[in-house]
């Protein structure tokens, strides 16, 4: 039977420029989230995890001219470059498709202080995506997925579908978001940000920490029987809508619950090593996720969130966090839910407090976003 699997990946975040650097920092309990005052022209301080422009550009300078690309594009291009580096995948092949996930791309160009930096059309997501795909000489029109915070997982599931159609041999699922006055001010207007580093599922949680970064998964399709050792297969997934409110999570976790059950149809929950939740640490999101997890009968599956390590990286989140899941499956070690101390949700979910070893081969990654959207992906480690 043919399955879609992860050939190679990369994470760029405040914790590092490779997947290995990021995973090492995560397992060491490091956080890239810190308090920022007077950044981006924002009057109020905010917690965020930022990617160092200096270090990014040191790396980027080796492959192209910094001035030709926006910061968002540089993160994504570098991420794809790093992911593809040790593979023999031809990124320029017509059988390779780019699927790019982002919420706001180059929106910072709307700022009168920055609008002169590039042409007017560059603020468009399709334009930015074209720059990214063209960098690798790929002639296929890149597919852009823009679906709030679920963009990354949505893009992975879309990539899987494009591969299963038989039209492509490889799909480069990549994505990112950069922070800007636009984004930070918006979340502040929603009173959604905590002034402390975020505390997912915790009784004292009071909002999220923002982040920026990029992630890439290069997917291929192959026979189950002849996958590389330790291959991570994108086994199943689903998206769903709460059909309730455009910004408030459903009180019954309706959409997420449905996405979970559709994803797990045919899978024994006992095979799940862990759930990597969205865990943004807002009062409502974490409560909603605990309800959906409980309704799906998964209260005993260990749950974690990465948001306190790298912040909420928006369009990159679904990618970066799914990649972390795949490596955790390969390591056989749980990721501690940084920022968590005492359970503060109504359902008795098992939030991870120790990065212990496990033997199970599967895990769930879930995300939810503005617009009432939810996405879940099931990963399985083979061999």
């Amino acid at each position, binding site marked *: 039977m043919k399955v879609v699997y992860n050939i190679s990946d990369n994470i760029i975040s405040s914790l590092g420029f490779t997947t290995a650097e990021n995973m090492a920092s995560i397992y060491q309990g490091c956080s890239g989230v810190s308090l920022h005052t007077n950044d981006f022209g924002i009057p109020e301080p905010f917690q965020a995890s930022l990617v160092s422009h200096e270090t990014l550009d040191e790396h980027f300078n080796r492959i192209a001219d910094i001035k030709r690309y926006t910061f968002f594009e540089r993160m994504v291009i570098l991420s794809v470059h790093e992911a593809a580096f040790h593979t023999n995948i031809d990124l320029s092949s017509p059988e390779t498709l780019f699927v790019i996930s982002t919420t706001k791309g180059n929106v910072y160009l709307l700022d009168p202080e920055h609008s002169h930096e590039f042409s007017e059309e560059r603020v468009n997501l399709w334009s930015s995506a074209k720059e990214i795909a063209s960098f690798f000489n790929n002639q296929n029109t890149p597919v852009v997925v823009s679906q709030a915070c679920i963009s990354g997982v949505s893009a992975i599931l879309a990539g899987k579908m494009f591969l299963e159609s038989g039209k492509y041999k490889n799909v480069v699922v990549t994505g990112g978001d950069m922070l800007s006055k636009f984004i930070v001010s918006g979340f502040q207007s929603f009173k959604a940000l905590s002034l402390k580093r975020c505390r997912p599922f915790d009784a004292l949680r009071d909002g999220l920490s923002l982040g920026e970064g990029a992630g890439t998964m290069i997917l291929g399709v192959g026979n189950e029987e002849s996958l590389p050792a330790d291959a991570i297969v994108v086994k199943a997934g689903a998206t769903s809508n709460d059909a309730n*409110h455009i910004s408030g999570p459903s009180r019954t976790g309706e959409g997420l619950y449905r996405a979970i059950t559709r994803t797990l149809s045919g899978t024994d929950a006992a095979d799940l090593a862990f759930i990597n939740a969205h865990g943004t640490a807002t009062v409502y999101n974490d409560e909603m996720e605990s309800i959906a997890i409980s309704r799906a009968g998964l209260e005993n599956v260990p749950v974690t969130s990465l948001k306190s390590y790298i912040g909420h990286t928006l369009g990159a989140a679904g990618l970066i966090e799914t990649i972390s899941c795949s490596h955790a499956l390969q390591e056989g070690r749980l990721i501690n839910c940084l920022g968590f101390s005492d359970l503060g949700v109504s359902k008795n979910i098992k939030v991870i407090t120790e990065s212990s070893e496990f033997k199970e081969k599967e895990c769930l990654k879930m995300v939810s976003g503005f617009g009432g959207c939810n996405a879940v992906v099931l990963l399985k480690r083979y061999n």
Partner: protein
Amino acid sequence: MDELILELKQEIIKVLNLEGVKPEDIDNDAPLFGDGLGLDSIDALELIVLLEKNYGIKLEDPGKGREIFGSINIFAKYISDNRKK
């Protein structure tokens, strides 16, 4: 106070896009949230912006919003007691 109440109603109708609603349609003591005008969490946040923009009152704790926006009368009294503009 009457002037403030009328002004407040007009502002609320405008910033919350309450189509077809006139100031005289809004009962001064009726709850603004819940059934009445069908306001939701985003409306509450927008009213917090209105408080600061029009009256110079900064509301740090959005939780207090529900109390203050209880009704037009409660809202107007709060503004009258705390306004800086």
